[in-house]
Each structure stands twice: as structure tokens, then as C-alpha cells.
């Protein structure tokens, strides 16, 4: 009994309260956007609001079970759970059911599960377990590689579905690694290459690879100028490049050479880089090698992205293009965002009131109860409601950071930051997409979006952390 008392006393009730508020608020919104359908059906077993209620019930039972378990259970079970969900992720590729083009559902009778939602949790536990080992050192190459493999493997399986949104969520783990000592440069470089990846896809769609190459060259030049503190270099190299381009252009004009635009830039870059390298060898400047190396890598990277992309089957290419908003004839995505913004915007300061939304009720945005649930918040509860929701999320995240920091065991802290990263990523991407500051990537809004798997998975994540936190004084896992 004593242990139980302690446990209850040690539960972080702030987080639990926020969770409950979010859950109730989420359900009300799911009800609101699906209510009009119930006019014709009655609140029957098939209605989304009812189904969501069932999942909330299931989640609460699971929470209870989590509290019954020993806190060391999660560390102990981390690898088996990881193995199990990796198996499910592979299984779903074979026997999964496709919805919206991604094969990500396992359907068993009336219940359909999305293993990718749970895979995030399992990966989080596995990474935490691996990194909390006594002799783990991030500076050791082997340890770092295994850490990345633990994250990368499920990420690639999810990408194969293809569920690009969930794939990106796995990138959020970088934040955890950063907290645990990964160099900040990794974050910047990975972020940079992610950006380069997206830009490449966009640029290659418009057949303007040369612009990308020019930009990369320019960036390299600027970086060098800053490092070497010699503005004169900027002038000299620009002049050389300019002359080169004009020369080659001349040859092309008179049909002596047959070159595409990006080949011209390519040759220019090559020549300038060679000159820079010779200069670097003569003057023994190491930073030149670094910069030229990076530049070469970036250029090769962009070309391989294009190559891999063109090898993909047509419908995968289409999906990526649609997601990036590149297929003009498929106006649906752009239309969704526009409608979503109109709905949110029309809520104004205080909102139209619960069940008073004219834009909601799923009339415009097909994915509204799931990915676009925030539109319902914005329309019905206005700026007050949506800002309140953002504030509540922020409060939750800040609180979770505090919880993570107060853990004595590394395992618990990593789980804590894992939860923070995944939640942050989800809500940042989801809300940004609905208000038109991020491309449409279908990932749910934690605790609000309609969908059993994601709700249950987020609940489990949160309460495993609360459970670990509640016994932080008892064990040093």
C-alpha cells in the first residue's frame, strides 16, 4: 500500500490535467466536424465520434495498466517491444491495407491499427535503453551508428509504405540526441540537407537544376568569404565565374558545344573549385578543402536525389509531387489549405461558437476530423481558443522538459525528451500546415485528431513518461 500511495502522490498531475483537457476538447471537435452526418445516422456504432470515445476508453484502460506495471518494465521490455513493432511494420508492407495511397493499416475485423504510430514509441524506448547503457559513448563511432540504425530502420520501413509524414517524425529524435550530446553541427547539417532534399525535388520538377547549383556555389563562396575575411575573394571568384559562363555560353550559341544550362554551371563550378583547390594547396588553407568538399558532396547529393526520384514508380513520384504542391492539376491539396485557412480565419477573435461552424462539418476539407482538426478549433473557438490550445501545448511541452530534466536515470530522461520531440514535431508540422506556413504533410495533431492508433500511441507515450517520473525517486533504472 505504501508504494501505491507514493505512486499517486508522485504522479505529475499538471500533465494529467492538460492531457484530460486536450482529450475532452479533441473529442468535442471530432464530434463537431462529424455531427452533421449523425443527423442522418443517429449516434450509432459507426459514427466517428462514438468510435473515438471507444478509443479514449481503451486508452484509459491502458493507462491504468501502465500504472500497475513496475517502472522498470519499460526499460526491460524496450528491445522485445521494438522487435515486435519492427515485425509489424514489415508485416504491414506485405498484408497491410492502403488508405490514401499508403499501405499503413492492419485491419482485423472492425479494428484497424496503424503500426507506425506505435513504432515511434517502441523506437523511443529502444533508443533510450541503448543510450542509457553504462558504457555508452556518443563519441564512439559504433555506438552512434547503432543509435542511428535504431531510428533509421523503422523510419525507412515507414517510408516504404509510403508514409512520408511519419518518416519525418523520426527525424525529431535528433533533438533527443542533441540533448544527449550530439554535436549541434549535426542538427544544422542534417537540417541543411533535408532542406536541400526538398529544394532539389521542387527544382528538378521545374527543370531548373542550374539554379540550385548556382545557389550552392554562392553559399560556398559566401561561407569562404566570411571564414577567410577577404571580401576581395568574392569579387575575384565572381568575376572568373562570370567570364567562364559568358565564354561557354558563346560556344553554345554558335553550336560548337551542346550543353544544357545546368551543365554550363556545372563546368563553371568545377573549374572554379579546381582553381580554389590549387590555391588551397599552395597557401595551405584547410578551410578551402572543407568548403570544396562540402560543395562537391552537396552537388552529388542533389543529382542522386534526382536520380533516385526518377527511378521511383510513377505513382510514388506523383505522391511526392502532390505533397510538395508541385502537381498543378491536382488542386486538392492547395485547395484544402486554402479552405482550412478560410475556416480558421473566419473564427476571428472569439470564434463562432461550438457547433456553429459553417466551414467545418467536413464540408470542405476531406481530412478534417484527422489531419485538419485544428480548423474546427480555429473556426468555432476563434483566436482565443486556438491560441489557448497552442499555449496549452506549449505548457505541456515545457512541463515535459522540466520532468525530463529532473529524472535521475538517463533512460527516463531520454524517454522524456523523446516524448517532447515527437509531440513538438507533430503539433508544429500539423498546425503550421493548417495555417499555410508548411507543406501539407499528413500527420495527426496529438490528442485531438480523430484516429484510434495515434490517440492510443500518444497516450501511452505520455503515461509511460508519467509512470517513470512517478517512481523517479525509487529506482535508478
Amino acid at each position, binding site marked *: 500500500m505504501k508504494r501505491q500511495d507514493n505512486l499517486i502522490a508522485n504522479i505529475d498531475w499538471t500533465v494529467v490535467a492538460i492531457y484530460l483537457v486536450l482529450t475532452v476538447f479533441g473529442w468535442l471537435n471530432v464530434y463537431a466536424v462529424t455531427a452533421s452526418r449523425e443527423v442522418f445516422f443517429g449516434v450509432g456504432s459507426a459514427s466517428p465520434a462514438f468510435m473515438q470515445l471507444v478509443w479514449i476508453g481503451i486508452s484509459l484502460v491502458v493507462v491504468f495498466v501502465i500504472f500497475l506495471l513496475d517502472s522498470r518494465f519499460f526499460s526491460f521490455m524496450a528491445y522485445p517491444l521494438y522487435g515486435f513493432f519492427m515485425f509489424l511494420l514489415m508485416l504491414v508492407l506485405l498484408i497491410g491495407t492502403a488508405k490514401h495511397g499508403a499501405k499503413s493499416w492492419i485491419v482485423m475485423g472492425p479494428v484497424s491499427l496503424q503500426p507506425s504510430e506505435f513504432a515511434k514509441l517502441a523506437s523511443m524506448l529502444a533508443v533510450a535503453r541503448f543510450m542509457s547503457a553504462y558504457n555508452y559513448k556518443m563519441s564512439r563511432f559504433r555506438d552512434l551508428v547503432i543509435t542511428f540504425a535504431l531510428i533509421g530502420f523503422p523510419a525507412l520501413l515507414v517510408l516504404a509504405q509510403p508514409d512520408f509524414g511519419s518518416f519525418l517524425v523520426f527525424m525529431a529524435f535528433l533533438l533527443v540526441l542533441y540533448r544527449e550530446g550530439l554535436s549541434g553541427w549535426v542538427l544544422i547539417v542534417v537540417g541543411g540537407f533535408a532542406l536541400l532534399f526538398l529544394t532539389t525535388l521542387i527544382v528538378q520538377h521545374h527543370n531548373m537544376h542550374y539554379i540550385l547549383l548556382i545557389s550552392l556555389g554562392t553559399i560556398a563562396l559566401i561561407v569562404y568569404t566570411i571564414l577567410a575575411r577577404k571580401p576581395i575573394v568574392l569579387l575575384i571568384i565572381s568575376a572568373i565565374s562570370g567570364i567562364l559562363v559568358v565564354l561557354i555560353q558563346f560556344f553554345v550559341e554558335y553550336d560548337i558545344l551542346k550543353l544544357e544550362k545546368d551543365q554550363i554551371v556545372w563546368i563553371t563550378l568545377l573549374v572554379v573549385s579546381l582553381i580554389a583547390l590549387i590555391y588551397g594547396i599552395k597557401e595551405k588553407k584547410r578551410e578551402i578543402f572543407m568548403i570544396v568538399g562540402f560543395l562537391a558532396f552537396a552537388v552529388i547529393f542533389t543529382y542522386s536525389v534526382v536520380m533516385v526520384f526518377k527511378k521511383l514508380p510513377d505513382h510514388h513520384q506523383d505522391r511526392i509531387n502532390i505533397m510538395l504542391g508541385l502537381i498543378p492539376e491536382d488542386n486538392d491539396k492547395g485547395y484544402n489549405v486554402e479552405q482550412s485557412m478560410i475556416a480558421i480565419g473566419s473564427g*476571428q*477573435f472569439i470564434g463562432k461558437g461550438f457547433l456553429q461552424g459553417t466551414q467545418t462539418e467536413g464540408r470542405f476539407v476531406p481530412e478534417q476530423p484527422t489531419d485538419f482538426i485544428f480548423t474546427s478549433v480555429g473556426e468555432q473557438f476563434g483566436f482565443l481558443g486556438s491560441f489557448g490550445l497552442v499555449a496549452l501545448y506549449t505548457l505541456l511541452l515545457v512541463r515535459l522538459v522540466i520532468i525530463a530534466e529532473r529524472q535521475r536515470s538517463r533512460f527516463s530522461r531520454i524517454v522524456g525528451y523523446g516524448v517532447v520531440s515527437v509531440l513538438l514535431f507533430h503539433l508544429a508540422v500539423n498546425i503550421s500546415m493548417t495555417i499555410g506556413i508548411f507543406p501539407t504533410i499528413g500527420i495527426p495533431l496529438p490528442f485531438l485528431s480523430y484516429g484510434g492508433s495515434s490517440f492510443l500511441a500518444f497516450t501511452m507515450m505520455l503515461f509511460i513518461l508519467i509512470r517513470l517520473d512517478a517512481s523517479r525517486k525509487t529506482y535508478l533504472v
Partner: protein
Amino acid sequence: MEQYTNRKFIILGIILLISLIISVRLFIIQVVMDYTGESESNILRKEVVYPHRGLIFDRNGELLVGNKFSYDLKIAPYELEVFDTTLLCELLNVDRETLIRRIQNVLKHPDERYNPIIKQLSDSTYGKLQERMYDFHGFYFSRRTLREYKREIASHLLGYVGEVDAGVIRRDRYYESGDYYGVSGVEYSYEKHLRGKKGCRYLQIDAKGREQGSYKEGRRDTAAQKGRDLYLTIDADLQAYGEKLMDGYRGSIVAIEPSTGEVLAYISAPSYDPSLLVGRQRETNYFNLAKDTLKPLYNYAIQAQYPPGSTFKPVNGLVALQEKVLTTRTTIYCDLGYYYTRYKKVRCHDHISPLNITHSVQHSCNAFFCHTYKLLLEDKKYSSTAKAYTNWRRLLMEFGLGDKLGIDLPYEKGGLIPDTTYYDNIYGSGHWRAATVISLAIGQGEILLTPLQMANMAATIANRGYYYTPHVVKRIAGVNQIDKPFTVPHQTDIDSANFIPIIDGMELAVNEFHGTAYWVRHPDFIICGKTGTAQNPHGKEHSVFMAFAPKDDPRIAISVYVEHGEYGARYAAPIASLMIEKYLTDSISDNWTRKNMEERMLNGNLLYSE
């Protein structure tokens, strides 16, 4: 261990920064900017605009397949209001329960599928309903186009259009539930050209469900693009005439222009009216046609595989000449047949004997071709019968036999010219000889050809050694050239000089008093032809004829196959002759022989019970 604790401030900073950005953005769109106006006039409906399917013309530009409008009644689930169900039921002529069930069905999946309440309303229903639409909020029409057939011909060639099923949608992302696509014929093989491109329209609807014009001046709309028109290679009049001739028979006529490979007529009999497979009655009619004992849906021209009978002799003769196992002066004695073993005899009919190759074609002498075939397979140039056989088969396949020709129609069959393994499996390797497969000499036995292949064989002979892959589309509007495979000639390995004696024989067969098809000759041009009588264990023998005309400047090559037509000259030859005359002179000359022939063919009946 705790050296990175400070990083928590950076992480907290990231969290706060993101929240700040989102909050500022929310403030801008919710408080600073005014979206209320937009939201009010913004009750929207997204409509797919279906393109017109490409039209289909014949080679002379006569319209064969057009489009007509039809209307589907749909509902906008979120705009539906209480309405007078009795009145609607009356207008639509459906019972109340069906209507309610269909509406509920749509409401269950409001976003997912093309799910009209009633499909393809008749013009009068549409008219009546249109006048009362203000009574029914949330109901609207979706305009579709259906095929309209101007002439009741070429159904097997044209194919038909139907609604996509789940499999089609999975294979091609373009399609959505409710779309139409070409299921067979050229509708199928040229689907990508014919279908055009769907457009989409965003309409503003006021609170009463009335259209208020386009959304944002149509900036988000995309126009539907009309499908490309097809110009077929067939001649509609010739096609119609052929179908008239073949009415009452089972079989096929295929006519090809030898110089291009263009199919001039493509008849599969019995046939059906293409308009049956349009619109609401399509499924019922299809079902009825499918269970019709006459099998009108079967595409005999490219799917029936028949023994060619004696029409096969010319190519066997060509191979023999090419392989030099005989010359044009070689004559072979025929004693009412040919003993290919001591006791077994292929029988032949009574004719002058001995004959050289030209006159053997003329008289269709079995003995000559059996002996020739024996010479071919026992040729000392080759170390074994199998090798000689393989070479014979190779030369034949260059005529487009034994494999699909690759016509631009779906579900073509390839016929059969067995390879050596086929006989090895039956008789054992090395245990079969010329005598074993002697019936191949006269187009019997295992050999099978589609009517299209027979016509192509005639075209190749007409061309003296090459052919273009037969095709049925001459031109696609807006596309420079038809597909490459149809513009490259296929050369056979037979020297063109070797065709002379064979073609002479085919000329004599029709134009000399002792020829097998003398009665179908035409005074104005020379038809070169070869009759065939294909043995049929299941009933009367089949009547086969292959021909081309005129002899020196062939403009048409043709094959006619009439099941149970008894012998080549009985049905197939006159039908081919009439088709040739129709194509070359546009009409049947007004003399007694020709008119009588036409009448006999038109009145003949081997199909329907009296």
C-alpha cells in the same frame, strides 16, 4: 554526464519559438485579416467536369461513334434539406424505399466515391426534374457523355465503354470511381488518346443551394480537355456490306490494304448492335449477349483459331521454292491422292496430272504439296527432320503466322505452328518424320491461324514478300504519326521472284476454267485467290478463301472464313469476291452472275434455325 544540461535552454527556446511563430500567424489570419466575407460566400461544391471522349471516324472521315449527353442525379450531402420524397419518387419513377436507401448509401461515404442517386436519366426525366429542382435543396446533376453509334457496324472493332472497377483504378491513378473507360476494341487500346482529361470546377452555392457562379473567378478551376479523335482504317461502307454478307454465317472477314497494313474491313460474325452496350441497359444487354448461344460477343477475326486448309498451300509452295527442293518445272504425278507411306494415302480430287507448282495451286493438288512437304522435311541440307522442320517454321513465322501479329486491338490470339518440342513430346525426339506430320502440307493437322493471320498471309503474297503489321487506326487527331510498329515493313526471307509462279497459280485458280474458284472471277480486274476446305471433325467442313486484287497493283488482300461452309468455293470465295468488287468499284456490277451470287450469299443461312 551533465555537461549538456544547458542544452535544455536551447530546446525550450525552440519550443517557445515555434509556439510564437504559430501564435503570430494565428493572430494575423484570425484577428488582423478578415476572412468572414469569404467564408460566407464560400459554401462550395466541387464538380468534376467530364471531358468529351474522342470521336471515331472511318478512313473516309465518316463519323462512326459520337457522344450524347446523359445526366446523373447527385446529392451534396451537407446541403441536403427535407424535401418532398413523394414528388421526387414520382419524377424519378422509383419507389420510396430505393430512393431513401440510395441517399443513405451516399451519406455513409460522403467524400469517397462517385455515388450518384440515379445514373443516366432519360432526357424526359431530366427535363421534368430540371424544372422542379428548386424544390430539392442539395440535389444537382452531373453531366456525363455516353457513346452514340451512328451506324450499326464494327462492334467488335470499336469495343465499348464501361465504368471503371477497383482494379482499373488501382492500375491507373487517373481514374476515380464513376469514370468511364474503354473496355475492349479500339476504345480499349486507344483509351489514353480517347479519354481526354477531366477538369474540375468549384461552384459557389448560396444557402438555398442555388449556383452563384464560380469560385474566385474560376482560378482554381481546370478545364476538361476533349479526347483525341480517331480515324480508323476501315471503310464504313465496305464494313457494312461485309456484315450484311456474313449475316447468317459464323466466321470472319478481314480485308487489308497490302501496301500499308491498314485493315479495310474487320468482320466477326455473328455480330451485335454496338448501341446495346451503352448506358443504363449496358449490363443487362451484356449479360444477354454473353449467354446468347450464338456467341455474338466472340471476336472471331483475332480470337478464333482455325486450320487454314488449302489456303496454306501457297506459303508451303513458297518455302519449297526458296529452299530449292523443286523448281517451277518440277511436276508431280497425282493418282487421286498421294501415298505418303505404303498404305496411307492423302486423297485428292480428279484433275489433270502431272502438274507443276503453278497448276497445283490452281487445282489445289494435295499430292503435289504433300510430296513437296516431304521433300522439304527430308532435305539433305539439314541433318535431321527436326532441323528441316525448324527452318520451315522459321520461314512461316516471317509471314506473321504462329504468333500474335500485334494488331492494335486487345486480346489477339497467336494461332499455332507447333515447334519441334511439340512433336517431340508426342512422338519422342527423333521419332517423327515427314510422314508423321504430312497433314501440315495442306494446312490441316495441328496448324491453326486466325482470320487476321490468313488475311495478312494474303497481303504478304500480294506484296511479293513483305507486310506491314495490320492496324485499325489510320490517324489520331493531334498526333503526328501512328505507332512505330505499324510503319516498319516486315520482310520475309522469300525472294520476290519465287512469288511469281505462286501468284500465277492463284490467278488461274480464279480466272481459268479449271480453277477451283472460277465462278467468282470478275471481268474487270484479276483476283488472285486460293480456296480452302478445312476439315472439321464436329460437322460440315469449313469454307475458306484467301485472295488479293488486282493482281499487279494489289489494293486489297482478304481472308474469308465461313464455318461449316462445306468447301472454299461455296461461301468464302464468293463473299471475298463480292467484297473485293465492292471495295474496288464501290458497287456490285449489274450482271446476272454477280447479282445472283450476291443474292445467294445474302440469303444463305447456316446459323439461324428456320
